[in-house]
């Protein structure tokens, strides 16, 4: 039998002195499916890292592990040089890591400002009741600051467009005072104009230098435009890790195409090996 694991370059652990987050040898299986084999990743302070990879390559699983929603089977993480193992999403958030998920953790039935403050609600001073007035005011300020225009913030988010919803999800994360933000396909379901607004927002955050961002993207042009560095996941491991200045759309495309060819050949070789075996299957091995 041919080895089903496809051979290609795997980026080993690396680090820089100003790393805020380091991820080493992370592996995760779901029953018979290996989502992550051996992932090594690092993120510098104030950096925007683009995470690329085909569907099913393991990007979302990696994000969920870093943000405390799932636990890795093996491997280690470091946050600001300290061992980092979040017990829950709340734990990760308390340590300054917050996430905007692909499946949009917005609550349709709740208003824009309740969504913005979910899990960080402002309460009245004397009673444990929600201070809606203050949340509305702060929500308006926060949205204005990052340049997101929502006409009414007291309507339920079910009434907003896909782009507006995504903008609010991003705003919620930015507003949470996290210092590491994970964005899982922030440009999905966005029109060109709204997508540009989100990329502008990321650029503004980068200029501020306060937060570090890992962003899952599909569009290579967006990656080169918005990110400092790019990491590409293939088959559960990082296949490329380069500053965006040193790579190009062509190189990124080549890696994906080569990967596809290699996978196809491997499948063919496997099929050939299977066919070469006696068809009646009576031979004892």
């Amino acid at each position, binding site marked *: 039998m041919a080895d089903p694991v496809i051979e290609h370059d795997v980026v080993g652990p690396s680090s820089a002195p100003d790393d805020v987050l380091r991820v080493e040898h992370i592996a995760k299986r779901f029953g018979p499916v290996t989502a992550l084999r051996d992932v090594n990743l690092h993120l510098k302070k104030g950096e925007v890292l683009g995470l690329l990879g085909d569907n099913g390559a393991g990007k979302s699983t990696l994000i969920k592990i870093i943000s405390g929603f799932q636990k890795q089977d093996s491997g280690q993480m470091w946050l600001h040089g300290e061992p980092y193992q979040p017990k829950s*999403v709340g734990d990760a958030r308390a340590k300054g890591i917050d996430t905007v998920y692909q499946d949009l953790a917005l609550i349709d039935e709740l208003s824009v400002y309740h969504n913005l403050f979910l899990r960080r609600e402002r309460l009245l001073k004397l009673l444990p*009741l*929600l201070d809606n007035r203050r949340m509305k005011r702060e929500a308006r300020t926060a949205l204005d600051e990052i340049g997101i225009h929502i006409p009414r913030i007291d309507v339920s988010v079910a009434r907003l467009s896909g782009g507006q919803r995504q903008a609010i999800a991003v705003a919620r994360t930015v507003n949470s005072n996290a210092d590491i933000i994970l964005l899982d396909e922030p440009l999905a379901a966005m029109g060109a104009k709204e997508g540009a607004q989100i990329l502008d927002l990321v650029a503004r955050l980068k200029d501020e230098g306060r937060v570090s961002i890992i962003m899952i993207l599909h569009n290579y042009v967006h990656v080169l435009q918005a990110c400092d560095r790019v990491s590409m996941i293939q088959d559960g491991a990082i296949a490329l890790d380069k500053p965006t200045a040193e790579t190009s759309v062509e190189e990124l495309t080549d890696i994906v195409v080569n990967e596809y060819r290699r996978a196809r050949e491997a499948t063919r070789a496997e099929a050939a090996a299977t066919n070469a075996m006696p068809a009646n299957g009576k031979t004892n091995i």
Partner: protein
Amino acid sequence: MALRERVLGLREGSIIVVTIVTAIYFSVETSSFFTSANFKTLLPYFAPYAIIAAGEVFVMILGEIDLSIGAMYLFTPFLFYKLSASWGIPLVPSVVIAMLVCTAVGLANGVAVAVIGINSFVATLGMLFTFEGLALIISHGETKSIPGAEVTHSEVSVSHIVNGHHIVLKETVNHIGTFAKIFGAGTYSELIWAVVIVIVLQVALTFTRWGLYTVAIGSNKLGAAEAGVKVKSVMIRNFVLCSLTAGLVGILEAVRAGSIQPDPAGSNEILFFAIAAGVIGGTLLTGGSGTVVGALIGALFLGILRDGLVLKGVNANYLLFYTGLAVLIAMTVNIYVQRARRGHSGGG
């Protein structure tokens, strides 16, 4: 126009209108509907349902259902009887212990649904049968008189003036104890319980984190979990609340009546009326939205309907039939109002 928009903007808007129209109809049709005597008759027709529905709404907003409230309604007064009459525990501590048992049952429901992952309909149906069965077992199928609800009589002398002469006549006056007055037997006792519980729970639903998370879980469970909401803990808490309100109403109704019958058919009717009150009041079974005040108005609507039909002299056999039709009509109206709200009007 503005008023219409405002009323429709309220989630309870449609049922408020339907209830007022129903009340006006019966006021016009019968001379005895709009009287204070009838108001007192009406109270037990809706106050108990309003309390149970208030708890049930918290479970329904989660997108779950609790059928075991029928059993808690039936079982809790028998447990109270056992604690108080058989084991001699004083009245108030008996109520407290009975409420603790309700809490434990709610906890079990919550764990079964939120932690083990049993469908809430199935889990609480099992609990419904189990505790209605237990009520039959501990009562030996017999009717019991409720301790603390005994009516005592005393004779008083009342002087009358008849044709210019003073005449002193002896009259019998009925007394009930303070415990009974508070726990259901006082004329307005159940109404006060209902109003207080509904206000407290509506405030909890609208103005606390607990309420916000309840809506969040019912609307988008995964999203709520990803945002860091402790989904299991909130769900368990709501099932506990639901058991508690049902158990409390069981005791209130038992004290009001003075005795309890081990009759699962009656308690199952309570169960369905409470759920109907919630649904009529604008709480969706699909979760994510609902109101406690709406459930109170839903219960009031059902109470007015039944009471009005009785006053109108409708054949008792038609009562359930008309109630059923009314529920269907009220729900149809609700759905159209809901669509209107989502479509253009600006409520929230």
